[in-house]
């Protein structure tokens, strides 16, 4: 049991992972760091679920940057099939080669007397047209072939059809792809796999069982402040505390789309651009469209926003300074 599962010292413990990601500006909560650590230790894909904009995709990007491995991304959508996800034969190239090599084929079959003999000659060659030269690897297969391993991001896997999940199973559990004409291609180095889902559709049980599961929710205020500090260092501590408190106030309202972390960051950037160093209601009104993406949400906040701004400015650690 005590046999070490770890190969990469950069993934040796949750603390090391958290620290490494933080250096790159991705502030990982303990559960995120632990999940990444477990995923690397057990060589299992990590399924990350949660609302949009909490940093699911960013996690994969940050991991690739941290491990200095290429990020291979497969964006899922309805109708995605194996030809676009796994591999495809280059049919056009095959047909073109057949045309170009017409004479050569004629030469080859020139000596034969019967149709059977001619077919046997061609049969001996047909492996040529189903070799790796005519294989177009798509993201899933690509990620298995990268020397030194890669980070594979299967983004918004819930948007793909249920049958696509079945396609993923072989890749994710055994890190191999079976191609009838070529045989099984096994990963040279197992990629670190991150799947993300917004829970548009519930994932099948078989896929869940093969993955580790991480539910990424909106961060608490302290963590979100750290995230803003890392992403927008120009933002003053007072403004940071106030804007995070305001966003947390917004998330308590019954809005059609709650502002996510990415929107907090965008908003912080906007406020910094406007040279703000503390929150004020007129400033909030002017920049609210960065945070809220629906008209009805904006209208609702116009009614309650002043109170939220006051609360955000009152409760923050810099309240005393304000008064």
């Amino acid at each position: 049991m005590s046999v070490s599962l770890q190969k990469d010292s950069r993934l040796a413990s949750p603390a090391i992972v958290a620290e490494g990601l933080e250096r790159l500006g991705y502030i990982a909560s303990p559960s995120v760091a632990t999940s990444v650590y477990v995923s690397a230790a057990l060589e299992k894909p990590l399924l990350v679920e949660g609302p949009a904009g909490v940093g699911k995709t960013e996690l994969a990007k940050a991991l690739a940057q941290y491990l200095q491995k290429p990020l291979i991304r497969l964006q899922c959508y309805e109708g995605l099939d194996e030809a676009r996800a796994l591999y495809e034969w280059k049919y056009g190239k095959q047909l073109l080669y057949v045309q170009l090599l017409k004479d050569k084929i004629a030469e080859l079959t020139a000596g034969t007397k019967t149709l059977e003999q001619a077919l046997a000659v061609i049969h001996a060659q047909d492996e040529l047209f189903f070799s790796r030269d005519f294989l177009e690897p798509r993201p899933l297969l690509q990620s298995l072939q990268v020397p030194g391993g890669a980070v594979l991001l299967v983004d918004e896997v819930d948007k793909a059809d249920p049958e696509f999940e079945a396609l993923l199973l072989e890749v994710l559990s055994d890190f191999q792809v079976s191609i009838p004409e070529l045989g099984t291609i096994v990963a040279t180095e197992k990629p670190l796999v991150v799947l993300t889902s917004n829970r548009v559709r519930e994932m099948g049980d078989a896929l869940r069982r093969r993955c580790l599961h991480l539910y990424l929710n909106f961060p608490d205020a302290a963590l979100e402040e750290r995230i803003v500090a890392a992403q927008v260092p120009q933002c003053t501590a007072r403004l940071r505390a106030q804007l995070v408190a305001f966003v947390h106030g917004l998330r308590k309202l019954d809005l059609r789309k709650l502002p996510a972390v990415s929107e907090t960051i965008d908003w912080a950037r906007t406020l910094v651009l406007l040279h703000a160093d503390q929150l004020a209601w007129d400033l909030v009104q002017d920049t609210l469209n960065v945070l809220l993406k629906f008209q009805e949400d904006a209208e609702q906040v116009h009614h309650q926003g002043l109170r939220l701004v006051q609360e955000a400015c009152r409760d923050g650690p810099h309240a005393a300074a304000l008064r």
Partner: protein
Amino acid sequence: MDRTLLLFVEALRQAGVRITPDETTDALRIAGEVGLAERDTLREVLGCTLAKSVADKRRFEATFQRFFALPGSSADSPQQTAPTAGATADDAGLPQAEPAAGDLSQEPGVMMQQRLAAAAREMRIDTIALPTQKGLYTRRLAMAAGGEELEAAWQLAQRQGDLETAAQLAAQGERLRAHARAMVEQAYQLYGKGRMQALSDIILQEKPLSALETRDLKRMRPLVEAMAQRLKDKRRITRHLRRGTLDVRRTLRANMGHDGVLMEVAWHRRLQQQPRLVALCDVSRSVERYVRFLLMLLFELKSVIRDLQVFAFAGDVACVNELFQRLSLEQALDAVPHAAPGGATDYGQLWRHMTAHQLHLFNRQTTVLVLGDARSNDLDPEVALLRRLSAQVKRVMWLDPEPRVQWGWGDSVIWRYRPLLHGLHECSTLLQLEHAVNRALVDFGA
């Protein structure tokens, strides 16, 4: 440590989290790596390996808190967890060393806990299955954890007339029993309650829906949800891929412009047919209760049946799609039975309405699902109209909530409809309803 984790997995399963042996192996491997010392790290690593959905995460958190608060469940022998025993022992009251038998009256609380933990392990406290076993388990646990010696010492003190010691020993015994009781109660919550629940679920699924009591209804919702999930999982497998094989004719035609040199490839495309389910629900008093469960099931299946048309009928017919889409399940269930105009149930009127106003819904992609007892109050059953509909749809499935022996008796016209149906199933229990809907959905989208 492995035993502790296996017990924890068992407790999670009892709490309703589905865990495969493979996942258990993962949990053991990773827990061996991080150890039991860091409670938070342990919770995180077990959480991501064992709980794979948001609902499971909630159950996991609750069970984790309860399990690691239970002395004995996490009780490894001190040798096994020697380097990490400190923190875990603090958290879960683990034995640091086997308590020395002897001066029981001096035994401090920790020692008592340790004895209890050891005794609980010995007697397999996790086998508790029924609430009525609690008394027996408590007594056996207390006795095994030193109660016997305490009792003997108390009797000796009584005989010797040492009343002060006797009183002390009695208080000690009472404390021991209280601890044992708390421990058995927790063990029941962890291991027994789930078993009890599973048993009552099986009974509920086979109980006639008409005999359900109000308290049962609350339990039915998760059962129906689980049922819907099973049906959804099955349906996933029956769907087909979109792209077909190479279309030679179209390929040749497409490449005529390239002087016959084949450069573009054309594929057979499989048309995505939109399968439609038309559910016709009899909401008269006699069938209302069954309709409730069918509606619950259909509501859960909304995501896989994209084109779902629901009608309620009694004296006349009403389309309730809008209620179904707009309201929450509870509201819809209450609203649907009142949507159809009352009066005596008239199956003839149902078919007249459908052929007159809703004929466009019935085509080769349509599966019709009727839930009703076919008791038409001696009104004209309009068999000819049903024949017409039946001929132009893919299938007509009928779910009759009455026991088979009552079919055709009195004003029931089910046998007159029977030859026009592609399936007729009795559905007086939840289990039968699941089988019937499953049959209706087989090949539904193909």
